[in-house]
């Protein structure tokens, strides 16, 4: 991924529509192959996990953030640095649990779901489950083993 030594924080621009359409084609093909929303969700999570374990290296190399001291900081870094860097959006952090070990990320305009309308026969499909997998994979690699991702 870091082929050039002085790449720094430069990011290549690409069409977001191609990205959205690619993800949409991926999900619909999975739906056709598995025909069962639960299996599709599981596959999306697995794929996301594989992306996450690799993406975390790129993220740490590009963003130069230091070690987070507490979970609150982790949440901030995920929302403000990571999502901004890769998807160009900043989700909002809400819904902290009383013990401070769970929170929700609300994505206002998720580029993955532009133009998408879930038909009625896929009501239990978690369309953006790939993102959950990515978060799970990335956080596991930096040793947060009890991290689970939910939508």
């Amino acid at each position, binding site marked *: 991924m870091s082929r050039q030594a002085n790449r720094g924080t430069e990011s290549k621009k690409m069409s977001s529509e191609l990205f*959205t359409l690619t993800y949409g084609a991926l*999900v*619909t093909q999975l739906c056709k192959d598995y025909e069962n929303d639960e299996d599709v969700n599981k596959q999306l999570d697995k794929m996301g996990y594989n992306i996450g374990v690799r993406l975390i290296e790129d993220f740490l190399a590009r963003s130069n953030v230091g070690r987070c001291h507490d979970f609150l900081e982790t949440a901030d870094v995920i929302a403000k640095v990571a999502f901004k860097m890769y998807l160009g959006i900043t989700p909002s952090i809400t819904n902290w649990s009383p013990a401070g070990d769970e929170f929700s990320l609300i994505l206002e305009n998720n580029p993955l779901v532009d133009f*998408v309308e879930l038909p009625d026969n896929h009501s239990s499909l978690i369309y953006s489950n790939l993102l959950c997998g990515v978060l799970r994979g990335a956080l596991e690699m930096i040793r947060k083993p009890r991290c689970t991702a939910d939508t």
Partner: protein
Amino acid sequence: MAVCVAVIAKENYPLYIRSIPTENELKFHYMVHTSLDVVDEKISAMGKALVDQRELYLGLLYPTEDYKVYGYVTNSKVKFVMVVDSSNTALRDNEIRSMFRKLHNSYTDVMCNPFYNPGDRIQSRWTKRMLRVLASSGHS
């Protein structure tokens, strides 16, 4: 105010057709169907040499005593037909053009939905809402 809006596929079957006065819908379906001949005539009249420069908006297809029918063809041969009340004389050409452009934009958004197969009838909730807004805002 547009009383009927229709989206017709390349093979000349309707993907979406909706008329505002819900009684006597068949009359509008028939009108749209007959307007397809006029559309084909206009497309072929342009000639093969001018295909690149052909404008998407076809203009008034034919007037009847109560209604006027306007047409618009995309480069992928999907046709949009709009039936407008004749009594609404305030409706200008560029307003019709902008309505067709909005229709074209909402059609491309439906196409971008990964769960929509090209050639299916358009049943998306979002499109229905959009088209309803379009039909009711014709007299702005």
